[in-house]
């Protein structure tokens, strides 16, 4: 073996230590976390429950599914959609000032740090906490759901808005400046056009997620399809559970499809 080759061999970075340590680390994490989890074993009823749910999905309660009255699945789905729509709109609007407050290229550093902390705090509070708090304001029902979704959306929407704001192309604003525009005109013609399509796309993306959250809020008593779901499950009325789950799945699939199409159109312009 040539001398140079031998020298290179010795120079080899000892990566295997890092790999070994990280694997051991992950393994120890797994062991630590599984320690506290008591595995009760699958409940005897567990398997039959799983089976029943599947049966319920395959042969749903058509009564509930096709029923167009106020207790039927379609109406509840509609209500859930309404909750998600209003919640998303409210969230999108409220997020705008928050987002500007957090953007380092628009406001001074201390404001943006403060803003980021506030938004982080808003984001961390679990959604059902908001739900319970708003129920005190509006009473139980769909309205509480709207407000909850509105506030919960702030977290993600603000984050995406901030990315859009920080990506702003300063040159366009500069050229408007040079042409003699006022601040309002600069915002209207320079900033808004760049941001608006992005904001709308963000809102639609969040709408999908909010729809899923809205279905769940019913568990808290905030309207939508969640409440009947949990009642049905607690009463072991699997056919109804099946009907509700099917309605849910169809809803989310349809919405996902439409929203992908719309967002693609927005992106292509």
């Amino acid at each position, binding site marked *: 073996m040539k001398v140079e080759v031998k020298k290179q061999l010795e120079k080899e970075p000892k990566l295997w230590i890092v790999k070994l340590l990280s694997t051991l680390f*992950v393994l120890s994490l*797994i062991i*630590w*976390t599984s320690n*506290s*989890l*008591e595995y*009760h074993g*699958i*409940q005897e009823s*567990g*398997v039959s*429950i*799983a089976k029943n*749910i599947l049966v319920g999905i395959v042969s749903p309660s058509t009564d509930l599914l096709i029923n167009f009255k106020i207790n039927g699945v379609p109406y509840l789905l*509609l*209500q859930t*959609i*309404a*909750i998600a*729509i*209003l919640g998303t*709109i409210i969230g999108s609007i409220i997020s705008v000032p928050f987002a500007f407050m957090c953007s380092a290229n628009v406001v001074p550093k201390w404001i943006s740090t403060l803003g980021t902390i506030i938004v*982080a705090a808003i*984001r*961390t*509070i*679990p*959604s*059902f*906490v908001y739900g*319970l*708090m*708003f129920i*005190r*304001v*509006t*009473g139980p*029902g*769909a*309205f509480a*759901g*709207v*407000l909850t979704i509105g506030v919960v959306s702030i977290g993600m929407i603000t984050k995406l808005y901030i990315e859009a704001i920080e990506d702003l192309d300063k040159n366009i604003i500069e050229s408007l400046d040079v042409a003699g525009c006022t601040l309002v005109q600069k915002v209207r013609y320079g900033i808004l056009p760049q941001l608006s399509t992005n904001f709308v796309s963000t809102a639609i993306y969040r709408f999908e997620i909010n729809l*899923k*959250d809205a*279905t*769940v809020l019913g*568990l*808290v008593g905030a*309207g939508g399809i969640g409440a009947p*779901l*949990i009642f049905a*499950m607690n009463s072991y009325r699997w056919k109804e559970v099946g009907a509700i*789950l099917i309605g*849910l*799945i169809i809803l*989310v*699939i349809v919405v*996902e499809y439409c929203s992908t199409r719309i967002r693609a159109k927005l992106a292509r312009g």
Partner: protein
Amino acid sequence: MDTLKNLIIPKKIILNNGKEIQPPIPKLPFILVGLIVIVIASAELTDFSFEKIIKNGHQFTAILSAMIPPNWGYAKEVIKPLKETIQMSLLGSIVGSILAVPFAILASVNINHNKPLLLIIRFLLSLVRTLPTLIIALIATFIFDLGPFAGTIAIAIFTLGIVAKMIYEKIETVDMGPFEALEALGATKLKAFLSAIIPQILPSYLSNCLYCFEVNVRYAAILGYVGAGGIGLILNEKIGWREYDKVGMMLFMLFVTVVIIEYLSKYIRGKLR
């Protein structure tokens, strides 16, 4: 009918040199009208009323102020459920991330040429992503009994759905050149995959797993509500008992934990690049 047409279709513009331009029909008014209709309908469906907000809004702020200052003495009691929450999301994220790999490989168009199998797997993954995590957790509590185990399962399933999608999208856009080179020098398809494709995907895979973990910690806090363990359970209890100072403490500690985890995660993900 004609007047309607005149209203909607803009007039032709005639330039000085005689050329005619027909501006297209503006879409914005239609969209705005449609939006307003939807908003009004939604408000009806949900009993939205500004009155209520103004009248009872103070209740919200009252609760908020009751949370501050938080009950510092309560901190000790929070640690155990908080630890449980972190453990749940950690284990769930790890299990979900690892199990996502075989699913993702089977869902990649350029690796799996068995069309029906591909579609089934993709459909299953979509299903898992569309069902809300809380509902999966709810069902899990029925099957596996209340407690953090059910929550872990729910998080694992949810993580699997997201990570698998991310992996197969990456696999489909990966550079197949090195794979071809490896086949040309005599490696089996499997070995070529392990040696040529995995190194390309690894960094973003790890990055995504870490991001999922971040998100899952916050999710895990919610899962407690359906009894799937973690901090959600007592949070719910204390709200019910209106012990808002304790609630404030729990939220504060949750907040600190999440901030630390997010910071660490950003740091590691930056290193992976």
